């Protein structure tokens, strides 16, 4: 009998450390599927961040480099300049990319480094038990915003796709989510497009994925998905913000 659904070859068949209802497992599986379908495992190098996805190399069976908190784009740049024909991607959370690593992501986009960034936005610091992230919504309660995020004290949620789409060097910028089979399929298409952007040497691509964190949102898995669809997408509208193909 032909298997129509199995663990991707680029994925290690093991339970993950992710919490129940977390989106990381879905997104990493999508990356593995894309690597298999494009048959690029042998020339792909990933960058694992500091944060919940720090152990991504325990699940993605590819050459991987760790990076200090916020620095995956710099590490990716260093690798890509040595191996311009390899596929280099960084996998980063919102604290890593939008707080401590904001300088690196902007300048890497501006140099139009030919890499792909998977930016997982779950509006909270998960690894450290749920503090405010730069992408935490206004009035959202976290460990460090017990009364809810206040614009006056903490600033408003930082919109990375909007920010990077005005940087000249960015080539493909899109935001998506994993709240339904339809959105998961869409996410896979957009991540694949990011990899294609790189394979065709068009320059910097970033795909932001709105992803649930039920444990630190203090919600059920189903409520988390609804929270993304009903609340998060108001601050972070889904869509393609920049596309080198439609610009030509």
């Amino acid at each position, binding site marked *: 009998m032909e298997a129509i659904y199995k663990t991707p070859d680029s994925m290690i068949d093991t339970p993950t450390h992710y919490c129940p209802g977390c989106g990381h497992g879905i997104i990493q599986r999508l990356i593995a599927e894309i690597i298999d379908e494009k048959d690029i*495992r*042998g*020339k*792909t*190098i990933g960058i*694992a961040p500091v944060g919940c996805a*720090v*152990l991504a*190399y325990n699940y993605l*069976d*590819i*050459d*991987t*480099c*760790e*990076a*200090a908190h916020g*620095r995956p784009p*710099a*590490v*990716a*740049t*260093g*690798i*890509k*300049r*040595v*191996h311009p024909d*390899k*596929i280099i991607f960084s996998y980063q959370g919102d604290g890593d990319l939008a707080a401590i690593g904001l*300088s*690196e992501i902007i*300048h890497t986009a501006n*140099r139009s480094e030919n890499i792909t960034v998977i930016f997982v936005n779950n509006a909270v610091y998960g690894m450290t038990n749920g503090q405010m992230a730069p992408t935490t919504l206004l009035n959202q309660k976290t460990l460090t915003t017990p009364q809810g995020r206040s614009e006056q004290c903490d600033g408003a949620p930082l919109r990375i796709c909007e920010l990077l789409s005005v940087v000249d060097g960015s080539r493909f910028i899109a935001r998506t989510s994993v709240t339904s089979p339809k959105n998961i399929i869409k996410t896979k298409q957009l991540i694949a497009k990011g990899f294609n952007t790189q394979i065709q040497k068009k320059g910097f691509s970033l795909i932001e994925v709105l992803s649930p964190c039920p444990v630190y949102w203090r919600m059920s898995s189903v409520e988390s998905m609804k929270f993304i669809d009903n609340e998060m997408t108001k601050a972070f509208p889904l869509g393609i913000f920049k596309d080198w193909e439609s610009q030509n």
Partner: protein
Amino acid sequence: MTLTDKNKKYLLTGNEACAEAAIQAGCRFYYGYPITPQNEILTHMAIRMPQAGGTSIQVESELAAINMVHGSAAAGARAMTSSSSPGISLKQEGISYLAGSELPCVIVNVQRGGPGLGDISPSQADYFQAVKGGGHGDYHTIVLAPSSVQETADLVFDAFDLADRYRNPVMILGDAQLGQMMESVVFNKKCEPNSFKKDWALTGANGKKRNIIKSFYPVRGELEKFNAKLQAKYSLIKSKEVRYEEINTENADIVIVAYGTCARICKEVLMKNKTPNIKVGLLRPITLWPYPSQIIQEISEKVRAILTVEMSAGQMVEDVRLSVSGRCPVHFYGRTGGGIPSPKEIIRKITEIISVKEEITSAT
């Protein structure tokens, strides 16, 4: 300008010689950020790296620079960054990650006065930071301290080989004086950029087991095991790589211990023989880590006193005292904040030490 004739002498600043030596040592990836007094490294790289088929990027920050070095080193290439004291402070987290990931690379510190923004004059006040770790965790970088433009070039060649041999970051610890002054230099040092097999490097898992470059060991016991491995490596480096220069230490009354720019000044004291009644020797550490403790201990058993001269408030002198362990008096003369000790000041200090000692001896 091509500088690749191995038989020719070139007149260059220490910074230019440093950059050129790196390229000739096979470094093809350089990441830097402007800061005085090391800017000539950055500008020389910008001209010469493309000629050599390499990459030189002026990056957005010192943090980006050291982490790009991390990426290029992980990818198996010879990579370098350079800066001066405040910039080197910014790189410390990255250096800790490089050491923890066992990645070979070269980091150049052209020291200036501190603390804080300090000034742009020569200083040796980053000694503690360079040799005691600098960043977090139990690690060491190999630290090489040149005292001339020629030696800067030679040690840069050696630094890349040492880094690859031990999979460890190597620091060149110079200062504003060495970086800015011009001397003749020959680039003829042997170097073997391709003789190190890097089967651990990231190239894509094509037909082989995949590689992971990391410093994270969250499972209980794993990190302690990894640290034991690091310490074993450091012990090996200590036993094999200590370097120093010894001048007139035989039958000396007093031996000066000084490195880099200070060692040059002390050499003048010896050469001009300004202290005819006192026999003065010099021990110049070339590796600051591993430190030449053994030879200093041996010297301390034969001399009346040791004098450490530094452009700091007294940093290396602590390692001298540890090496001497009370076998003879250890004196210190230092200038800070861009002050440079003059031969006259050092002679005054030497005559003070010896005459004070003689007074005590004759009184008892």
